[in-house]
């Protein structure tokens, strides 16, 4: 299951949703808004913008590939957009698999690939102004 949402992410619900009697390993990744960055010592909030339709398609491809490659039992990825405060969860990815190696690899693949292939942009807001975070050139999901 993949989702782009404006609402706060319910982390417990994400974790619970990948439970599976045949799974021995669950890995959850949370991306959270930090109070600082490499460029800004005091970040107050973060604004995320998305090209929703393309982002959903790219997330779906990540889901399909992760399930296929690591034979996952379940996969959930939710990315929040809009304005978030320090400590809030911007992205949650949970996977369950028979064994831990697959679960770790698949979860890390998902977040690494989200950062390269999903059209999302974030803007750091601090007391001294705001700036779009320097990102990476969007790659094709193919």
């Amino acid at each position: 299951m993949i989702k782009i949402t404006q609402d706060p992410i319910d982390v417990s619900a994400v974790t619970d949703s990948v439970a599976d009697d045949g799974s021995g390993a669950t890995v959850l990744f949370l991306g959270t808004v930090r109070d600082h960055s490499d460029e800004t010592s005091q970040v107050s909030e973060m604004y995320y913008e998305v090209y929703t339709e393309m982002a959903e398609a790219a997330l779906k491809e990540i889901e399909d590939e992760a399930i296929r490659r690591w034979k996952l039992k379940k996969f959930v990825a939710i990315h929040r957009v809009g304005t978030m405060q320090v400590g809030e969860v911007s992205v949650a990815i949970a996977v369950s698999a028979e064994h831990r190696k697959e679960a770790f690899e698949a979860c890390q693949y998902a977040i690494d690939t989200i950062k390269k292939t999903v059209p999302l942009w974030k803007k750091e807001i601090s007391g001294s102004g705001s700036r779009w975070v320097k990102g990476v050139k969007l790659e094709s999901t193919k």
Partner: protein
Amino acid sequence: MKFKIKLFGSTREAVGQKEAEVTFNHEPITVTELKSTLYTVYPALVSGAGYLVVAVNRKVADDTATVTSTDELALLPLVSGG
């Protein structure tokens, strides 16, 4: 033909609109043609030209790809999700 191009993030801010519009008297056109016309009509885009990516129907497109005015087009700056 009018081509509408969605804008996001820093590119949307630079242009000051959520959508750019350029006109061609023929179609299809190549992504390269689309980009150079965009840079002419919206000089604010030129500084970021090196890293802008065109998406056609929600897929990253090569410069040699061809597009028509009915395609869903978007101009995407460096991404920073997660």
